[in-house]
């Protein structure tokens, strides 16, 4: 039990830093959880078997090896992406009073994950880990302007989704209202 608690403590202390380190290095959005699972599994295994003197440092040592191992036998897949427009896309109006449930969270996340990899990485680093755009640019090896364009493009897509969802909800509420009126009628 003590070991569990120690592990949980180390996990909570290193999780964000490890994510921040891993995100620019992954080749697919689907890889991040696999990598995190394997890294922490190896850490816990090592803690159980022989103890680890400095676990926070050990985590990153494992992470480097695991990353190399993970991608070593994978052929590089060239992903063709339409070139980013020179102008920032029309993002539409900023939505207000957003209410999220589990389903809508999942749907928004699926949209984010389906973005081209650099866009997904930028969005996750910016919103999930509060990394400033200049640091994202350096981590991804692209210009800060490109980071902003990617964030903007992803936001535009998400705003379209939120607008459509809001419209559907309002339509549903209208039908419910008119139904109840007619019931009283």
């Amino acid at each position, binding site marked *: 039990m003590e070991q569990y608690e120690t592990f949980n403590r180390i996990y909570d202390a290193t999780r964000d830093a490890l994510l921040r380190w891993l995100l620019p290095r992954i080749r697919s959005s689907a890889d991040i959880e696999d990598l*995190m699972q394997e890294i922490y599994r190896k850490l816990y295994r090592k803690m159980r078997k022989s103890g680890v003197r400095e676990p926070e*440092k050990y985590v990153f040592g494992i992470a480097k090896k695991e990353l190399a191992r993970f991608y070593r036998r*994978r052929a590089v897949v060239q992903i063709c992406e339409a070139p980013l427009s020179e102008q920032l896309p029309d993002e539409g109006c*900023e939505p207000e009073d957003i209410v999220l449930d589990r389903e809508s969270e999942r749907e928004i996340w699926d949209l984010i994950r389906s973005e081209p990899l650099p866009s997904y990485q930028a969005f996750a680093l910016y919103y999930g880990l509060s990394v400033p755009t200049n640091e994202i640019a*350096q*981590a991804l*090896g692209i210009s800060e302007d490109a980071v902003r364009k990617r964030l903007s493009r992803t936001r535009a897509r998400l705003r379209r989704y939120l607008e459509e969802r809001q419209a559907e909800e309002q339509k549903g509420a209208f039908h419910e209202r008119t139904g109840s009126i007619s019931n009283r009628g």
Partner: protein
Amino acid sequence: MNEQEAYQTVVKNQIINDDDVKRYAKAAVPERKPALRVLKPVTIALAALLLVFGAAMTIPAARAEVLGWFAPSSARDYIGTDPKDREPVPEIDGMVVDASQNQTEIKLNYVADEPYWREIGENFSATLGETFFDGRDIYLRIDFEGLSGYPVFENAWCPSLPADALLPALLAAEDGTEPESHLVLTLPDGKELPAWMAAAERPVDGAFIRSFRERFDPHRSYDEETAAAWREESLAHCRANGARAVADVHIDRPDEYRFYPDNGRTLGDYIDENGYLTLYVRYWVSVDRAEPETKLDVDLGTVKVNMTGYRDMKTRSVAVENGTIELFGDAEISDWLFDLDPSRGVRSCSVDLNGVKLQVATPGTVDILGVHDLQILVTTPDGWSEEQKRVFARNLLFDVKIDDDLTITYGGGLTDNGDGSYTMCIDLGDGIPLNRIATIETVTLTPVLHLTSFPESAIVLKVN
């Protein structure tokens, strides 16, 4: 909530499932386990799977496609693949010794007096297969029949297996502990060569793994009931199919390989006049509670290894077409700098890449197993600190492109030259399908830093 808060919430909640990560790390089940949408009766599912797979294997085009999935790309892969399922490489086959021709009897030395282990011990069966020495490592294939193969999969997280393969039987014993398999190759006088053993993927295992992959929903969490179902299915798979493992011992030069404690002899002294080494094979399984407890101990028999045939392997020389490249622009590199200062966390270094030079120190050679001993000298400008030089070298990768269509990303293998420069030794004895090595013409190395490649700066080598 406003838009920013919404996106922050979504990313933080969805990017990874912390409970799943922690649970997976701590579970006695050491490998990732998918949630099964529909749990079919195990016997029906397996029978159907094998029927489909068997049907595919009898149709020439389908068989070729199935075998193509498993094209060996290393000595380990080659030995781990059944001869009937691999495209032969005659030069390797000429050096392989098939131990199954002279199989000696298995001797059960010990089995724990527990129902689970008794079942394994009473029904234990294994066949020693081929051996191969490539000048660096001794390889031995072992086929474990039925449930004997169960503990072998514990080692199957090794790097030689495809990273996205879901291994069927990487589960704990019934009492929740984690079995660990061991293999040692013993010389006639008792001196030991501890081997590292890993499961080899076979077509049947590959199909089994892929069937799980198709049912795996990465967005669902797995629970204890699912893990139990997974375990039962895996046990059933082992009962029906067993497991194949490849053991290997890194030797390098037999005439320089010494033992501990030193007996005054090298491994070369044990090779007979015909160039063969005789080894006794011992296998045991332990579980790790307070301290290791042996659960099973078996003598598997004797094998011979051809220790001199590798000297006749044909090698092709490599000519340098473009051997020196320079990098340009700015970069931010991050690393854990515990070597320099244990108190520091992950740091970022900003560097100006102008003046960084990557140069072929030795072009290496190509033999039937791959590209070997290609050395790249990494030099950085004088104005960089020791920390920057070290971090840069550690972050540097190469996309190694073989002809036009196969790229392998390579990193590591660094040697500090002591003068601020580093040498990266690239060995591609694993990764290139063996059946195409003979036709390699060009090797192109493009440096990569943090997933950014520098295609305008590429080292080009021509294979003669």
